[in-house]
C-alpha cells in the first residue's frame, strides 16, 4: 500500500482513504408534509450512478418500528446500512417486552446522534434523512443532514426539493390538509422536480403514516406535458447556440 507520507501536507491521503469522500449511487429529493391525520411523504425510485440512471426501482422510504417512517436521499448503500442499525435498535427495544415502543421523536434523535457521531469520525453517512411519524396523536416531522444538522417543521424537502418544492409548500400548506389535498400537493411538488431536476425519474411512491400505521403506495407515474412553448425550442433567440 502507498505510504500516507507520499502526499505531504494532506491530513488524509485520498488514494488510501478508508472513508466516504463522495457518494456512488444516489437518490434525489424526498418531500414530506404534515396533514390532518398524520404525515405524507414522496420520493421517486431512481438510483443515480453519477449522471447515469443506474437503478430504477429503489425503495427510499421504509417504515421504522410501529410509529415512524424514514425517507432518504443521498448514498443508497449508506441508507441501507442505516436501516440495519435501525432494525437492531427496534429489535432490542422490543425484547424488553414492556409494552413500550420507540416513537418518531426517539428515532429522529437516534438518527441525529448517528449522523453527528459519524461526522465527528470524519466518516459520514452520505444522506439527507426525513423522519415522519405519529404517536399518541402527536404528529412529528423532522430532517437530519449528513453532518448532523437537524430540525422539525410542518413540511420538509431534501436536496433540490428545498429549492423547488418548499416554496410551493410554503404557499399552499395548511394545518388541515385532507389526505387527497396532501397527495395532490405532493404530486405538484414531484412534478416540478421531475421537470427541473435531471436525476428525478417518473416512477415514484407516496407513503402515509397515521395512528393506524404505515402504508407505502405501489410505484406509479405522474401525467406530464412537454408541449409548453418554453420546452419546444428553448434556445430560440439565443444566438450562436445550438
Amino acid at each position, binding site marked *: 500500500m502507498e505510504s500516507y507520507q507520499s502526499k505531504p501536507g494532506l491530513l488524509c491521503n485520498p488514494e488510501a482513504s478508508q472513508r*466516504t*469522500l*463522495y457518494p456512488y449511487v444516489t437518490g434525489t429529493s424526498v418531500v414530506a408534509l404534515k396533514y390532518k391525520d398524520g404525515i405524507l411523504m414522496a420520493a421517486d425510485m431512481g438510483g443515480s450512478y453519477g449522471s447515469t440512471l443506474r437503478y430504477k426501482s429503489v425503495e427510499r422510504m421504509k417504515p421504522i418500528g410501529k410509529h415512524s417512517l424514514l425517507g432518504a436521499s443521498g448514498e443508497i448503500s449508506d441508507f441501507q446500512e442505516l436501516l440495519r442499525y435501525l432494525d437492531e435498535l427496534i429489535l432490542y427495544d422490543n425484547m424488553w417486552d414492556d409494552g413500550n415502543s420507540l416513537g418518531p421523536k426517539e428515532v429522529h434523535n437516534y438518527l*441525529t446522534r448517528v449522523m*453527528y457521531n459519524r*461526522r*465527528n469520525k*470524519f466518516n*459520514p453517512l452520505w444522506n439527507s434523512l426525513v423522519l415522519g411519524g405519529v404517536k399518541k396523536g402527536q404528529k412529528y416531522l423532522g*430532517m437530519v*443532514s449528513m*453532518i*448532523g*444538522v*437537524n*430540525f*422539525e*417543521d410542518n413540511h420538509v424537502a431534501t436536496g433540490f426539493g*428545498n*429549492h423547488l418544492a418548499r416554496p410551493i409548500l410554503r404557499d399552499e400548506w395548511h394545518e388541515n390538509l385532507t389526505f387527497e389535498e396532501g397527495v395532490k400537493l405532493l404530486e405538484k411538488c414531484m412534478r416540478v422536480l421531475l421537470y427541473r431536476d435531471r436525476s428525478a425519474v417518473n416512477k415514484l411512491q407516496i407513503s402515509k403514516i397515521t395512528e393506524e400505521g404505515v402504508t407505502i403506495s405501489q410505484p406509479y407515474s405522474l401525467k406530464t406535458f412537454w408541449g409548453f412553448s418554453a420546452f419546444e425550442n428553448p434556445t430560440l433567440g439565443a444566438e450562436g447556440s445550438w
Partner: protein
Amino acid sequence: MTKQHANWSPYDNNGGSCVAIAGANYCVIAADTRMSTGYSILTRDYSKICKLADKAVLASSGFQADVKALQKHLAAKHLIYQHQHNKQMSCPAMAQLLSNTLYYKRFFPYYAFNVLGGKGCVFTYDAVGSYERVGYSSQGSGSTLIIPFLDNQLKSPSPLLLPAVDAVTPLSEAEAIDLVKTVFASATERDIYTGDRLEIVVLNADGTRYEYMELRKD
C-alpha cells in the same frame, strides 16, 4: 482523473444573530429563529436560545449540530452540578464551564458563537473559548452590523478605567427590549442570514419572560 467534486467538510454555517444586554436588575437575551445553509433557508422557526439555569441563558449561532451538542453537554453538566450542590449554577460559573468546554475541543472546535446572559452580566465568546465579561454583546452573522450600533447607543465605560466600572447599561428594561427589537429589525434588512422571527428572553427579579416579534421573511 482530476478532482471534479467539492471536498467534504464537517462544518456548515447555519447563520443567525444573537444579542444580550445587561442592566442593573435585568438581562435581555435575544436571537432570530432563522436557520440557513448557503442561500437556502432550512426552517424559519428554530430557537437558538437555551435556558441552562435559572440565571444563565445561552444564545448561540454557527453550526447547528455543534451548537446542539454543546447545549446538551452543558445541560448534562448542570444536572450533575445540581445533584452535587443542591442549587442552580450561577452565571459566572456557567461562563467558566462554557469556556473550558469550548477550549477542550481546541483542535476540532465547536463552530459555535455564544453570548451568555445572566442577571446583571453578559459573557461573550469565540469558538475556542476566549471569553470576556461585558455589559452588552452580539455574536453571529449579523454581529458586524449590530455591535457598532450598540456601541453608539449604550456608550459603555472603558474597560481600561481604574478602578473598574461595572459595564451594565443605564437603560431601563423596557428601553433595552426596544433597542433589541430595533437592532434586529435593522440587521434583518442587510444580513440575509438573519430574519423570520425574533425570540427575546427577559431575565429579572420576577423570573424569566419570553417575547416574540416577527421579522422580514425575505
